[in-house]
């Protein structure tokens, strides 16, 4: 049984990785590669977000703060220091995300539940306001354009495989983390926080740790996105970005590790097919969110799993 589960997981990994690796081979269109890059990076962002909510039960409405921080670290380095400073910008964004998430985390894990959500939102909006107003440093509403990864990474194909490897590595690390003893502890924090001290563990410290981890990988997704789109914009810090990553997670299913990744794929493809044709995209995702919350709270992956489990139990001889 355990072996079967391990095999299944490895197979899933291989199929997913091979699928994304084959995109540039199967399609010569640059556009499909762009779409696949977006799915990869939003998928990483969503999986990192779900470490907070699905695993630990902390609904953050402000992860755009770190996503944007990663992107702006790269953008500002390239804009103010020099075009070759792309990778140091990524590193700076990651270090910045760790430091900022410890500082903000210490403030906001003092409250729980709805208040936590509200505070993450407020800090995210604060960062957005500052970026928006500080025109001569951040470019304000104009954003920053022509961010080109340096050297060989400047080649679209190389950059695609670069992010594929980094995203796969990050998601693998996050999966290991969620299956590790720490991951079990985080689930315990969600399900029964008052029992955690009985295990000799601290709720606050666990929450802070996962907040920092999630923010780190959100920043990584943001900084790599700057190289995909070659431009960044204050919208990356805006609260709707946080909302979008939540929607992806709910759509895919917050109870499953890969649910948010699947959700990201569905939303990106939907946005590509439908979003371009309608100016009422927010209305559509609002309705999708409403349907998911009211009717399918387990998400697509979760509902599919419970459906197939029910079919199996019907088919099995009694």
């Amino acid at each position, binding site marked *: 049984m355990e072996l079967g589960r391990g095999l299944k997981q490895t197979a899933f990994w291989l199929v997913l990785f091979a699928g994304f690796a084959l995109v540039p081979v199967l399609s010569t269109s640059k556009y499909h590669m762009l779409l696949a890059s977006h799915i990869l990076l939003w998928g990483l962002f969503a999986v990192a977000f779900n470490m907070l909510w699905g695993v630990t039960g902390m609904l953050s409405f402000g992860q755009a703060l770190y996503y944007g921080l990663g992107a702006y670290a790269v953008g500002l380095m390239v804009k103010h220091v020099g075009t070759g400073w792309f990778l140091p910008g990524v590193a700076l964004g990651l270090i910045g995300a760790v430091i900022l998430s410890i500082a903000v985390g210490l403030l906001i894990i003092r*409250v729980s539940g709805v208040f936590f959500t509200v505070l993450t939102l407020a800090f995210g909006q604060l960062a957005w306001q500052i970026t928006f107003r500080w025109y001569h440093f951040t470019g304000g509403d104009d954003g920053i354009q022509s961010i080109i990864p340096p050297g060989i990474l400047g080649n679209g194909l190389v950059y695609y495989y670069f992010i594929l490897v980094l995203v796969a590595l990050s998601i693998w690390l996050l999966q290991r983390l969620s299956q590790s003893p720490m991951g079990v502890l985080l689930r315990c924090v969600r399900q029964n926080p008052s029992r955690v001290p009985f295990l000799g563990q601290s709720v606050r410290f666990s929450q802070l740790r996962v907040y920092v981890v999630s923010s780190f990988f959100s920043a990584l997704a943001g900084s790599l996105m700057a190289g995909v789109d070659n431009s960044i914009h204050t919208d990356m810090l805006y609260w709707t970005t946080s909302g979008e990553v939540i929607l992806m997670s709910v759509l895919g299913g917050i109870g499953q590790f890969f649910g948010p990744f699947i959700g990201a794929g569905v939303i990106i493809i939907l946005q590509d097919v439908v979003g371009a044709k309608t100016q009422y995209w927010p*209305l559509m995702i609002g309705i999708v969110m409403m349907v998911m919350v009211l009717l399918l709270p387990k998400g697509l992956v979760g509902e599919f799993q419970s459906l197939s489990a029910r079919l199996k139990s019907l088919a099995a001889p009694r």
Partner: protein
Amino acid sequence: MDLSFIAVQLLSGLTMATLLFLVASGLTLIFGVGNVFNFAHGSFYMLGAYFAYQTVSALHTNFWAAALMAALGAGIIGMLAEFLFLRRIYGRSEEGGFQILLTYSFILVIDDLVKMIWGTEYKSLLRPAGFQGSISAGDVTMPTYNLAIIAIGLVIVVLAWLILTRTRPGRVARAAALDREMLGAMGVNVPLTMTLVFGIATALGGFAGALAAPLRSVTPGAGIEVIIDSLIVVVIGGMGHFWGAWLGALLLGEVTSFAVAIVPEWASVVGYLVMVLCLIFKPEGLFAPRQVRKA
């Protein structure tokens, strides 16, 4: 900085505080009584502004009638939203997160519906007749409309306090905040109470939107600015505390008003700073009674 400057800023801060309080009190009422966090509260504020605009431009009524219509409209839509959607997720495990997501979806839907119906361009509403001038006392000049808003706000504060503490519906609402099950056992229709409370709170939000419409232009997206300001208010004041909301609104209104005059570019950031300071020193809210913190 002379005295008249301070007086003008104090008064304009008071105007802002009154509007903030009207929105934040609805938010805090729903949370206090129903333990529901209405993320979309700002959208009802926005709806109120549009309803007032529509009533004035289509029916040519006077402004005050339009403001009442706005409150009524926002209240009815609020009750519908509670009855049709929110009610379905009460009592679900991890309800808080799903409430936020559901009310977040309201924001997206209401914003886009408003864009469909009224378009994206700015709408403006004239100040009501009789309140278009201003009053001067010495160097201090104040538009009469702002003074009217402050007066209306004071009346509503006192009325709301009297209703909550002195009347039977007020007592039922406060009892629902403490123990919903016991209230039901006493023969009170708790679901109906929740719907009505939601309606009253969203009506307050809509009324505030209508009152603010002549001061600020009416745009889609106004809801989100307002919700974040009222979040700051309830964080400062302590969620679910009536007077906390009032004092929080007062503090944020005054601080913002002075910031607008002194550092106009960064005025919107100053409010957050107040909130951060408050969080560092008293995370349960500046004006909330001290209590044991939850883990």
